[in-house]
């Protein structure tokens, strides 16, 4: 776990580096989340349900956008590096295995409101969003 935490720090650095370029959307998290940045791998682990809890043991609640939406396809390709359809199948599979696939919110506002209110929540919103009461963990180009 601690080892992982080191990796996350690295990822965060990388992401921080990427922010220099015009960011497409940002990865936001509830302020209670005990990390400052996440790597693409860590993100991918979270959304592919390989990582369930934060370092302090808090449950990770990933928030996704609705299927077929532009941000989701971008997120799928760029962060998760997979096609939406494959991911949908994967999440269905995981759902039947008893895991909770990432929650779906249909707008940046709702994702933001959700992440703001739900401890351990993590989501992605358009980079243009006015962010408040959330922790930005990464920016995705």
């Amino acid at each position, binding site marked *: 776990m601690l080892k992982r935490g080191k990796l996350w720090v690295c990822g965060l650095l990388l992401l921080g580096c990427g922010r220099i370029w015009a960011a497409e959307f940002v990865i936001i998290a509830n302020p209670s989340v005990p990390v400052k940045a996440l790597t693409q791998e860590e993100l991918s682990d979270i959304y592919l349900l390989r990582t369930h809890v934060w370092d302090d043991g808090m*449950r990770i*609640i990933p928030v996704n956008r609705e299927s077929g939406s532009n941000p989701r396809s971008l997120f799928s390709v760029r962060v998760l590096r997979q096609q939406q359809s494959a991911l949908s199948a994967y999440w269905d599979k995981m759902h039947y295995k008893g895991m*909770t696939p990432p929650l779906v*919110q*249909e*707008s940046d*506002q*709702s994702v*933001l409101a*959700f992440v703001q209110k739900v401890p351990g929540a993590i989501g992605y919103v358009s980079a243009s969003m006015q962010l408040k009461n959330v922790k930005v963990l990464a920016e995705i180009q």
Partner: protein
Amino acid sequence: MINWISKSIAFKLGASFFAVFIITYALTAAVVFSVARQTITRSETDSLSQYTNLKLDRVGNKFEQLATNLHAWTSLEIMNDLISGDVDKRVARTLEGLKRKYGNLEGGDIYAFDTKGKLIAASTQQTETDVMPSQWLPVAEFKMVDKHVNKFSRDPMVALVTPIAASFSSDYQVGYLAITYPWAELEKLIFDSDHKMLLVRQANPPTILASDIPGDIDVNLINGTTISVTLNGVNYIAGRSSTQDSWVPDWRIVALKPEKEALASLAKVGFELLLLGLLLSIPIVLAIRWLSKILTDPLHELTDFVTNITSSGDLSRRVNIRSRDELGTLANSFNQMTGNLELITTERERFVRELEELTWTLEKKVQERTSAMQVTNTDLTKTIQALKDAQGQLVQAEKMASLGQLVAGVAHELNNPVGFIYANFPQLEEYVKELLALIDALLNLPMDESSHRLALRQVEDIELDSLRKDILDIIRSGKSGASRIKEIVSSLRSFSRLDEAELKSVLLEEGINDTLAILGHQIKNRITVVRDYRLNHLVTCFAGQINQVFMNIIYNGIQAMGDVGTLTIGTRKENEMAVITIGDTGSGISQDIIGKIFDPFFTTKKIGEGTGLGLSISYGIIEKHGGYIEVESEVGKGTRFTIHLKLRSRLERRMVNIKPASDRRKAV
């Protein structure tokens, strides 16, 4: 009552049985009816209770259904949007969709609140308020809000409120979800047209939540165990729900059913009982009639029997005992009694009869003795008479015997002289005739006149003509007299049995003639003797004895005829027998003594005139000869004796061996 008493036993028995049946059946029917009523009431109550239970179940099910739905809806991922205040209106859309999908929720609505109680979304447009009604608070867990009115609606309702947990974490509450259900719908579930229903919340005091009963409601109806209640003059049977619903544990439903309706089947039961009673009464009546007949028949029989016995007095009858019961015993006892009575009666009758017999016997005996004594007396008299007679007889017999001997001797002695005389008479007649002839011749001799005259004179003197005439007459008369003497002597000889001892073949007519000759003086001219001799045959017999028989019979006949009469004597031969009939025209013999005339010492003559032995001896003689005597007589006309004798007597045979004791007889 009197009529009742005067009825027959069978009727009384039947009526009593029938009354017992009626009472028993009425009581049974009453009990059955009462039990049926209780049972029906209880079952009605039970069924009402069941019914209310069902109703409560339905209510519970409705709540369950609502709760299930609510619970399901809280699990919707959409509810996560409550976190974000439903910025996308997804929750609102979903709730509206659900309301549509679930049949408008029967008029209810779904409300979603955030964790602060702020209304986030609802299935209906709510403009008035945006916070959770106070009645629903607090919502710690799934809860049911009883009947109430809140700001969402003017109509009363129930509501189910539950917290919503986030789909991603049960620990994380996203808000509240509530569903309302209109009270009117609930009432629809409970009420129906058949019953009066009462929904009560059981508390202290109980609260009536719903009721379709007009007017005030007795609290006891809710609390108590009353099963019958009167409302507005109508009786109802009440049933209470016995179960508790987990959603509304303090709810209780009371159902009322009109008693009339509930007990409709009771009327049927009553009717059936009545029908059963009627149906039962038919075989019962028949059975009673049969039974009373069975029971009273022997009584009737007994009664008839007693009546019969009483009227007829016939004690030999017996009752036919058919049963072994009391009546049988009675009949048996009666039979025994009758038997005893009969025995006693028979005994009595026997005694009476014996007494009568005894009396009769006594009388008879007295009579017998009297008559016997009379007879004895008569006999004695007779015996005395007979003895006297016998004495006279013996004297007579001795006299006769002596006389007989005398006569026999005289006859014997006379026989020779008479013989001389008789034998000399013809000689004398001849001599006289010669003398007369001589005289005539002498007179006619030529002689002188004087001599002649002298002779004539002498002839005239002696009256020769008359002398001639007389002398011949005298001779004839002498001859006749001698002849008669000879005859008499001869008869006496033969009659006096001088030749008796010898069995001879004789002409019976001679004996008869001898007898008639001896009795000539009796006959004289007064009695005409008609002789009709046709036998003309020798008969072998003891002639003397037979002559004695003739003597007796003819003498009796002559005596019977008195002054004048005709004695008819006939002989003839008939079947090798000699038949001699001697008839007289005398006084006859009466029929009552005709059987006794042959008895010894029987006589109708005066004492001394007859011995009573004549016919008896005659009978004996004829019988000894193997013949018999018959007598026929008619009083006033005469008597006829008929003697049958064998031509050849059986005595002839005896003769060889038996030598008649002629000497001895002579001695007698």
